């Protein structure tokens, strides 16, 4: 979609070869446009939910909320949270909002992988069968320094005392040796409830509602200096403090969250007639993550930015009008 968007934008902005936009500028505007539309989904979701309650939205093809939820859900990610210490866990650096935090109370076993393999876990020191590892249980990468930290997979088969076949490679394909892991039972999972900082004191001191392993709670905290941020973005993730304080098992707390969309990147390698030639095979290529139906909206947004860049009021106005019309149709 990104090449189509760029071509459309260039076509709109082109005026006697005056409206050329460099790939670098386009990528910047594309990122802004995508983020703008991404955030708009949540406001639209709220607005349409209210309309549904007023019987202003129907079911079937008229179910607008359903479509919005589908898009938002496509950004949903589940990750185990790296333990920073005791009951303090790091949130992922790419989260937009935390949807749910879950606690896996029963750890079956833990250890360190000793051999590489795709969709397998090998640990020569393990006793998977004797420890009670069974099909369907969850294997979590608990190595905080690993780029795959928090990734998880399900046990597909218990091959031997020392080897499991997994649904995924939670350690990555290349670096499966030396990563620590934990295996957790997938029954009895409980949701960890978000509680505001100003309530947690009262909650902890309430005999009836004090957090327990059956009804745990967490408070969101700011990033601490020792939180490892995303190497690419430099963002620092926030932390959560889980209650009761006995929840200290690394890998036992997972988050289901909505992540930010990845930054779109229109890539090229060669020039053709002085023009960069679109190359989808570059390592840093990234298409828009929003659905194709958002293409007009993205084009309109980028046109606004470009209109400002090239000081072309018509382009800006066109983008603005398109956006307004689009909003009117959607509401």
């Amino acid at each position: 979609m990104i090449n189509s968007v760029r071509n459309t934008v260039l076509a709109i902005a082109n005026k006697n070869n005056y409206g050329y936009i460099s790939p670098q500028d386009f990528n910047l505007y594309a990122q802004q446009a995508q983020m703008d539309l991404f955030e708009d989904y949540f406001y639209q979701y709220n607005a349409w939910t209210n309309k549904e309650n007023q019987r202003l939205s129907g079911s079937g093809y008229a179910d607008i909320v359903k479509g919005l939820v589908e898009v938002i859900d496509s950004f949903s990610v589940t990750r185990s949270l790296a333990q920073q210490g005791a009951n303090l866990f790091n949130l992922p650096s790419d989260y937009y909002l935390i949807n749910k935090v879950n606690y896996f109370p029963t750890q079956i076993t833990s250890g360190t992988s000793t051999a590489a393999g795709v969709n397998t876990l090998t640990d020569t020191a393990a006793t998977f069968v004797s420890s009670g590892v069974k099909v369907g249980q969850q294997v979590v990468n608990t190595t905080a320094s690993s780029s795959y930290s928090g990734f998880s997979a399900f046990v597909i088969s218990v091959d031997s005392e020392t080897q499991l076949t997994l649904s995924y490679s939670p350690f990555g394909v290349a670096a499966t040796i030396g990563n620590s892991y934990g295996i957790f039972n997938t029954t009895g999972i409980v949701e960890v409830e978000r509680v505001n900082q100003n309530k947690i004191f009262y909650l902890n001191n309430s005999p009836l509602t004090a957090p327990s392993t059956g009804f745990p709670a967490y408070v969101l905290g700011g990033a601490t200096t020792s939180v490892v941020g995303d190497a690419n973005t430099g963002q620092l993730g926030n932390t959560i403090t889980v209650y009761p304080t006995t929840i200290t098992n690394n890998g036992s707390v997972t988050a289901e969250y909505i992540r930010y969309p990845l930054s779109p990147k229109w890539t090229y390698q060669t020039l053709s007639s002085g023009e960069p030639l679109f190359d989808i095979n570059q390592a840093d290529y990234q298409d828009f993550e929003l659905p194709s139906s958002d293409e007009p909206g993205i084009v309109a947004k980028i046109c606004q930015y470009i209109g400002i860049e090239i000081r072309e009021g018509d382009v800006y106005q066109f983008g603005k009008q398109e956006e307004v019309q689009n909003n009117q149709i959607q509401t």
Partner: protein
Amino acid sequence: MAYINDYAYYANSGAIPQDKNWGSYQYVSLNDIVNNFMLMYQGNHELINNLNRYQVLFHAKRGIQELNYDAMKEVKVLQMDLDDNLRFILPSDYVNWVRISQYLNGVLYPLTENIQTGWASTYLQDNNAKIIYDQDGNVLKPQFSQLDMSFTSGAKTIYLNESSAYNNQSGWNVDGCWYFDFGIGARFGLNTETANANPTFSIDKQRGVINFSSIGNGASVVVEYVSDGMENGEDGSISVNKLFEEYLYAYVKYSLLNGRLGVQEYIVNRARKDKSSLLRNAKIRLSNIHPGRLLMSLRGQDKWLK
């Protein structure tokens, strides 16, 4: 789909204790109540939204407590021997008592609550009955009052049992009639409230003990009591009879709506009526009136009363 299979029900899947799941189908757990409420009664299209789970948990527990106090018949029974002070320490989850009995020679003897107090606080006093204070001006208190000590050492009572004040008193037999120094024969009728030969008890709620009189130390006492169903704070063990499940949802819903800002009064009223009628229904169900039981009672209708 069954909740648990037969092997899990009858034999706890081979684990110990084997009787863990017997009768479990009567109950629904607190976890399920909270989970079901969050799933079915709160959300963007429900009466209640933007709800914290701990609010549901609080009201669900409060509802279960209320049920335990006055609607459910979940009586707990604890048997213990009395200590040297003739005291029975109240069970850790005690809220109110139902019946207290002495277990003697294989028979349960229901005991009567003593209408007189069996304990008192007291202050230290000098020979002139002046109260004694410490250097900070606070009154000095002994651990036990005279009444406390007399009760534990077999105080006389007004009950017509072994500790009666009149027991073993001398009298005179003149021409076949007994005469005493006190007015035992001068009163017509019998004070049935105190006419009980069994030992008596009184409950000292503040100290958390049941005091007994005219009973031997080491006596075996059975206390039937009601708790609040909180299972000593073990959330995972809290459950409620399924007959009350719908009532609990209604109770939580009403409690939440009642405390919310901007909820129309007719909605609160609807929730309140729901709650009340469901409680009534559940009580009727739990009373377990059915033809078999009625028949047994009605069979006594032709009995001659002498």
